[in-house]
């Protein structure tokens, strides 16, 4: 991690691709200014990612994706223009600058369209583990095969592992601007994922599990396989139940998908476009006092962590909800300028081909010191929700209302009594946040959306059965 104005040992390595070489990007920024830009910014990216899917001990799909290129944003006469290229030849770099300027000239001025100012400093976070490079493709295949084997061996009722996936990525990002932004970082991540089918008496139940880390040594492939298998098997014998009102205890994987819906509603983009129910609620109580939610862009374990965002604003910790009170929203430079607030470092860049947009980084919901099984033990009548289908499509982000199909286990007198099927859970986001009565100590990283979340118990939920 390098601070602004500092030299970078990463870019000094021999063989650094030009698209992430700070010196090369600086030259390009100077070219853009010389060609007439009032301000210019260059975002460079080099990444390699792999995805390996095994089935029956053999590789069913293998994809390796290498990406390298840069995007140029220029501001001229109050308008921003954008252009990108994957070609680092001199002619191509001249061309990308010319295009960005032409695009700015064809765009109408917008007083909120700004480039980020130079920061004081960037936080130091270790995001890269070189051990990722040490493992051969064959060894990575081996990890997935081990996970699949562990799931199949765990219980004879595991009939099929539909998906066993090993995936990893290694990315370098560099950003330079005429406003003094200058930074680079490298990050690695990997995970194992399983989707297991267990069968008994012609009924099929499913279970998923993840193991996440910055290098394969941090992954527990065998444990992940066993966990997915156990999660499927415990649902076998599921029967419908009558409708009731009670406490819904969401396991971390389920709570994570609710949090990603919440996170999207807490971006300034959603607020300013009238697509967030939280727009008028800043400073108000929106959740139970137990709820403290932070967008933590520099969490050492968070897969979305970075020293700076796609515009060069330092990433940091942005309190979203503290003790139940809504503290504010997530901003990039443009939405921040419109609202008269600083950017929170949430100007996300999907790749060098795309312009920044506001997105959460790592959403972290603070847990408690209560064990997850004690959370269940405190529930008189309820359901332990182990899977939910359609949280994203089933939730209305404007009203916060949702209805989702769930799998889970019935809780009676503080004990898990039997698995359930054909059950739906309905409610709205605000009532759910306000109804949170307990949190577990079992916080877990869920990579889709990058969320760290424990078991969450919500009282007075409507469980619709037969």
């Amino acid at each position, binding site marked *: 991690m390098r601070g602004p104005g500092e030299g970078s040992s990463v870019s000094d390595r021999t063989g650094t691709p030009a698209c992430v070489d700070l010196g090369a990007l600086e030259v390009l920024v100077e070219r853009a200014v010389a060609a007439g830009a009032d301000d210019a910014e260059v975002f460079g990216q080099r990444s390699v990612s792999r995805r390996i899917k095994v089935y029956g001990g053999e590789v069913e*799909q293998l994809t390796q994706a290498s990406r390298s290129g840069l995007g140029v944003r220029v501001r001229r006469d109050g308008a921003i223009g*954008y252009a990108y290229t994957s070609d680092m*030849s001199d002619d191509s770099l001249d061309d990308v600058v010319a295009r960005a300027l032409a695009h700015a000239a*064809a765009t109408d001025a917008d007083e909120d369209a700004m480039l980020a100012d130079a920061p004081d400093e960037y936080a130091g976070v270790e995001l890269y583990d070189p051990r990722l490079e040490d493992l051969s493709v064959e060894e990575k295949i081996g990890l997935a095969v081990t996970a699949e084997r562990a799931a199949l061996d765990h219980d004879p009722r595991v009939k099929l592992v539909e998906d066993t996936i090993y995936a990893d990525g290694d990315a370098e990002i560099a950003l330079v601007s005429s406003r003094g932004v200058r930074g680079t970082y490298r990050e690695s991540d990997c995970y194992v994922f399983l989707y297991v089918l267990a069968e008994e008496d012609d009924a099929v139940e499913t279970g998923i599990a993840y193991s996440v880390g910055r290098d394969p040594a941090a992954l527990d492939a065998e444990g992940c396989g066993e966990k997915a298998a156990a999660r499927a098997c415990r649902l076998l014998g599921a029967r419908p139940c009558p409708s009731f009102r009670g406490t819904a205890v969401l396991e971390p994987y389920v709570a994570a998908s609710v949090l990603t819906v919440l996170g999207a509603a807490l971006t300034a983009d959603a607020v300013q476009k009238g697509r967030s129910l939280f727009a008028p609620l800043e400073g108000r109580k929106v959740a139970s006092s137990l709820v403290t939610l932070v967008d933590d862009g520099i969490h050492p374990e968070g897969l979305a962590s970075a020293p700076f965002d796609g515009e060069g604003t330092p990433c940091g910790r942005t309190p979203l909800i503290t003790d139940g009170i809504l503290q504010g929203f997530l901003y990039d430079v443009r939405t921040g300028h419109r609202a008269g607030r600083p950017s929170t470092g949430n100007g996300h860049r999907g790749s060098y081909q795309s312009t920044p947009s506001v997105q959460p980084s790592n959403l972290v919901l603070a847990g408690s010191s209560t064990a997850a099984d004690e959370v269940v033990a405190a529930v008189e009548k309820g359901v332990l929700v182990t899977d939910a289908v359609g949280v994203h499509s089933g939730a209305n982000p404007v009203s916060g209302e949702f209805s989702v199909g769930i799998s889970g286990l019935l809780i009676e007198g503080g004990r898990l009594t039997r698995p359930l099927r054909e059950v739906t859970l309905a409610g709205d986001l605000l009532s759910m946040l306000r109804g949170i009565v307990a949190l577990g100590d079992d916080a877990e990283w869920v990579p889709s959306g990058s969320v760290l979340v424990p078991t969450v118990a919500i009282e007075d939920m409507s469980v619709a059965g037969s």
Partner: protein
Amino acid sequence: MNVVDTLDLELLHETVRRALERGGDFAEVFVEERDTLSMRKEDGRIDQVAGGREAGFGVRLCVGDRTYYAHSDEIDEESLGRAATTVAAALERGDAGVAQRLTTLRTDRGRHPVVVPPETVAIERKRALLDAGDDAARSAGERIAQVTVAYGEGRRQVLVVNSLGDAVRDDRTRVRLIAHVVARRDDVIQTGYDSIGGSTGFELLDEETAGTVAAAAADKALAMLSARPAPAGVMPVVLANGFGGVLFHEACGHGLEADTIVKGASIYAGKMGESVAAPIVDAYDDGGLANGWGSAAFDDEGVPTQRTKVIDGGRLCGYLYDRLHAGRLGARPSGNGRRQSFRHIPLPRMTTTYIGPGDSTPDEIIGATERGFFARSLAGGQVEPASGAFVFGVAEGYLIENGRVTTPLRGATLIGSGIEILNRIDMVASDMEIRTGMCGKDGQSVPVGTGQPTLRIAEMTIGGTA
């Protein structure tokens, strides 16, 4: 500068051989250079102008029904070699697969002529299109609340070299203009949409055309402002030419794509030669349609595009194949192997799919309908692929009374299944028209044409809100 033309075909063929080093049935290198520009005018302001150039390649290895794929946006000897080694590593060591000797490079320039390459046209003229569209829509009256006009152009140059010895080069240029209009009267809000596009040059578009497209979108939105809630029930449905073809694409076309046939996930599997529609119905997929939005000279596997008759006099007579699934089904590839970019594997996809013209006129069809529903354009829908069961929203719909189109109706949905509605088609007009769209499947989006003449379905369920 064309990266594609500077590449050594022998080097690509060597890459194919290296991919087959440990075995495999088929290997291929797909090289692509793409150059795009997109512009948008919204709320009276040109707020987005972006574009760029990227060049890259993908190496594919097929073994049985398994596919291994590596892609990169650096095209050099080292990257090609690394990609080939990566896909080969998915296999246990074995005898090398067979690569045929390379044949002469094939091209088919001029099949979809481009008179004015859009990249040679000044950006001011493209801005003028957006302004003309915006003006035309806004001049439709004070009830026009919001206008979005977008222009897109793209050039894709592709090169395919495979283990069958094929070497194929294709050069594709596309342009498109779309208009989206929101009209409001008190609390009622309605939207209208229209578009024009093709595999052609800038000669397709001028300010008058842009105005016509945007005015048509505005008219739709305005017409629906005075709409009454649609009644529910079963009645004859007249589907207008052009946009009505979306129904055939979604409810029937996807079931003709060979991957759904192989998976047994299509109601058309095993029905070749059988009656699947009324005898009056002929249907086609035509990847060679001159200057069509969904057209190309070759597909993304280097197979020449063609017109495939899929339904002949009501009988099923063709599926849509890529190489892999044609091989599985013992058929010849039909030029339907398409991919979004070099970052994706090819899949069997529709190109321009349409129901062929009949003998009636639209007036005769409306005139022969005592009481019915006239669907002029459709909104999105949901289709259950295995059965072809669908629910489609109607964007613009009217009541037919005593052989005349009368009251506009809102909130109508069309409910049915593919084979059921094809069998109930009892009148087909001669006013064939093709519309442009983007089709998503397995995370890949490709341009498609959909179309049909005006036609009548004798009986169909309308879901209404009245």
